């Protein structure tokens, strides 16, 4: 987390140079807020896919991400970060959107695994979404199938850096401003009911 922990590559530097203007325009309070939110990240406990198997090692003694200020928390209302760990099936996507909308701002999303980026191994599956960023705002992608715990930690560190330096436009701002775009995508895929419907009446589903 300290300087030198992550070696910036040239790409990252050029990205920062582009957003130099944003960085300098923030007020003192904004700076302080960003510093605080980068130092305390509460991750909502929702293992959406198979990437969830690498979360216990990350949160326990071997990799111990708590040293970076990242802690698990049970409810979305107290959480800052959601890790979408791998493929999202259509049924899960409804819950993910609901969880995401319940989280209070500032909130960030880390998408874990190749399948959130472009379908990955399940690119021809009828039940998994291919691009997560079409449906909710995503801040950080960690590629791999499955990504190692070190990769996940690096994703966290990069996210913290960018929050602290205010170098990226957070996904939740995009989600709020372009809500119509996201909603159109959600409705195109999931129909009008983008939130889960729990109903007892399953009549009419019987094909025989």
């Amino acid at each position, binding site marked *: 987390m300290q300087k030198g922990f992550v070696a910036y590559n040239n790409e990252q530097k050029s990205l920062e140079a582009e957003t130099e203007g944003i960085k300098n325009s923030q007020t003192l309070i904004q700076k302080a807020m960003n510093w605080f939110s980068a130092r305390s990240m509460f991750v909502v406990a929702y293992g959406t896919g198979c990437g969830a198997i690498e979360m216990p090692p990350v949160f326990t003694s071997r990799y111990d991400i708590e040293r970076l200020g990242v802690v698990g928390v049970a409810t979305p209302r107290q959480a800052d970060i959601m890790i979408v760990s791998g493929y999202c099936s259509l049924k899960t996507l409804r819950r993910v959107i609901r969880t995401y909308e319940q989280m209070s701002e500032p909130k960030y999303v880390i998408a874990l695994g190749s399948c959130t980026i*472009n*379908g990955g191994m399940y690119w*021809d599956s009828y*039940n998994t979404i291919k691009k997560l960023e079409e449906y909710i705002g995503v801040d950080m992608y960690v590629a791999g199938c499955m990504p190692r715990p070190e990769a996940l930690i690096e994703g966290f560190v990069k996210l913290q850096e960018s929050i602290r330096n205010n170098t990226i436009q957070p996904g939740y701002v995009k989600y709020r401003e372009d809500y119509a775009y996201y909603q159109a995508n959600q409705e195109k*895929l999931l*129909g009008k009911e983008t939130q889960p*419907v729990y109903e007892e009446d399953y009549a009419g589903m*019987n*094909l*025989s």
Partner: protein
Amino acid sequence: MKNLQKTYEVTQKVERLFEVTVTQTDFWEAVLYISTQTEFNTLSQIACADWIEEEHFLLTYILTTDARDKNLMLKLTLGREYESMPSVMTLFPQAEVMERDLHEMYGIGFEGNETLYDFVLEQWHDLPPLRREFDTLAFVHEHFAFKGGREDNKDVKVEQKRRREEAKKQKALEAAKQEAKKQETEKQETEKPKEPNTHATDAEETQDKKPDTKEAEDGQ
């Protein structure tokens, strides 16, 4: 086992795996008899394979013994047009969830099973997905968009052929160039007697060659 062999024709597939084939009409009688009179009294899986060319489903009830040392495949064929089967829930309670699964994935009905509602899919309005006529790739292209960068993901064999031909062309070009150069140098050599200047020409030659070889590598 003896009881079973008396009434049905049993074939052994591999070690500890047997097979009995029945028709759809005497299925219920067979499963009742096997589960009560023989040692194969537990259901471990209901498998279904879609043989679309032969226009039927092949249903396989995999039964196992109390000692869990032998398996029996009880097979029957079923028409593909959303036909229904008697449910075996009363004999094996665990069949409930398996039948629910098959109903959703193939559209097979099970008479007597009350819980044939959504299992793993939610608000699904398309064909049952495991039927062979359901095209998952078409469904994907209809409902999802891919990120850019997949355009070069062409048919591998076509692409390989194209690249090989390109490389061949490059090689031919290169060979022609070298030939021309050789002739030039030969001319020069014939014109001029040997001088210490040859080192410089060598260096020039290699410099000229390098970009060519690079291009060829890219082509491959």
